[in-house]
């Protein structure tokens, strides 16, 4: 009985590797396709890539979006928890900037000082003032996803940053990591919670609740890419800006007429 493992035999054994890699290489993608295609109602996540536009010049600060978001997504009622909120910026002539968001702007905003014209508040003349709706920016390079130790928050195939509520351990790392303050810890489940672009609505062909109720179309929803959506039109026609571009998070919430003072 020969104990030698000669070159001929060795090469013959090595020939088995290429087919093995091919087989394994096929199994992976097939499994992936099966998981992706198994979605109900023929919704194909790989065919969509969602984003939102916010036209600051149209926002009237009525707070309907905040109300609708809370109702639609069962967000805790306390004035601390918001998936979306509206901020009011007041820039005075002396350069001071005042930002407020009483109850997230949900019940609208109180008049500043007295409603005089030209506008004067706190004895100072207002240079400019406007409302800025804010929400999760659904970053293309999301810092919250990077820091999650268990993989409970992720960017889905259609570009929406989601939270896996059943798998989240409530460590709050993502809340710390988000530069936009878009996340909170749900006091009932002790898991991270955030805007999902109303994922349950957009996958059924509906608009997110905040976009649905926005009376002035200050919020525009749609997709990035070839598909013709209101967002694509807005992006083509306007000068776009994003929040905190220097953070390199590549946000997918695009603002028009965004003032330099907005943080």
């Amino acid at each position, binding site marked *: 009985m020969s104990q030698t493992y000669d070159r001929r035999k060795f090469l013959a054994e090595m020939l088995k590797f290429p087919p093995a890699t091919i087989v394994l290489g096929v199994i992976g993608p097939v499994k992936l396709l099966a998981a992706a295609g198994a979605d109900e109602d023929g919704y194909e996540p790989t065919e969509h890539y969602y984003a939102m536009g916010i036209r600051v010049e149209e926002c009237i600060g009525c707070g309907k979006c905040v109300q*609708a978001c809370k109702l639609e997504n069962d967000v805790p009622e306390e004035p601390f928890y918001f998936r979306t909120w509206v901020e009011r910026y007041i820039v005075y002539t002396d350069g001071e900037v005042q930002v407020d968001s009483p109850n997230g702007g949900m019940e609208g905003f109180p008049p*500043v000082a007295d409603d005089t014209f030209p506008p004067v508040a706190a004895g100072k003349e207002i240079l400019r003032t406007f*409302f800025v709706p804010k929400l999760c920016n659904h970053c293309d390079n999301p810092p919250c996803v990077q820091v999650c130790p268990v993989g409970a928050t992720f960017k889905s195939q259609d570009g929406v940053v989601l939270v*896996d*509520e059943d798998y989240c351990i409530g460590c709050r790392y993502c809340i710390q990591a988000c530069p936009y303050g878009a996340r909170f810890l749900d006091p009932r489940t002790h898991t991270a919670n955030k805007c999902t672009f109303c*994922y349950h609505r957009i996958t059924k062909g509906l608009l997110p609740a905040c976009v649905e109720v926005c009376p*002035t179309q200050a919020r525009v929803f749609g997709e990035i890419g070839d598909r013709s959506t209101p967002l694509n039109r807005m992006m083509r026609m306007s000068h776009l800006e994003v929040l905190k571009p220097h953070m390199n998070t590549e946000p997918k919430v695009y603002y028009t007429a965004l003032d330099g003072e907005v943080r």
Partner: protein
Amino acid sequence: MFKALLKPITDLRAWIRGWSGGLGRRKIPTQIIQLGVIFLAVGVGMFVMRQKFVPETFGDLGHYRGAAVAANAALEPRYSGWQECAICHPDKVETKNKSFHRTVSCEACHGPASDHANRPMRLRPELPVGREPCLACHRYLVSRPTGFPQVIEERHNPVRACTSCHDAHDPTPPERIQECSACHNTIARSKAVSPHAPLDCEVCHEAPAEHKVQPRAHVPKKPFEREFCGTCHAREATPPELIRGVDLTVYEIPRIDLTTHGGTFVCWQCHYQHSPEAR
């Protein structure tokens, strides 16, 4: 204790040695067999733990549970979208979509309507009443964009519901002012709480219709003599029982003797007609 733990490994080693020896091969060194057994145990252990701790669909689509996507998508919408409303209320939607409110979705004012769409008779959506629902958007705030229609609520027909002049589904402002209070608001408010409340402005002021269009060119008339007030308030006067649909017989009208009361003064030098204090 330690030996007892190692016993299975020693046994296995003896068995492998016997087996390899039986085949007549060169003997495998003991250290290699021991290491092999440990590696095998660790490998199996890791495999079992991975099976146990990594959730089922984890890694299917990326570094997350694939099932979480479906869980996020499984929620039921509460806002049904205006297209759903148009199925049963096409007239309202059609009117609205041609008006200034064309961008306002039904549910922006009426609240979430999914429940209503599913059980139309049982669960009714909100019916906004009063001024507050409209003022949420149309109250004057400095920060609102220029050109957006806004009102200062204290000055714009206070107390009256917006819907008494504007149709919420087609809110074009009325071309012609309908009420005197639209301009003469302070007077209207005083009169509303005075004994003269049931009297229309036209009872005392003869206003040409053009006054509402060109207020300064067509000025309404004012009473100019004591006898005008006397038609109701003189002792011997018999005021008409019905003035413009108001039954005056239910009121106790204060009477005076025109010849002795107030001398040569006219009534409005002492009494403010829109809120006459003397009873």
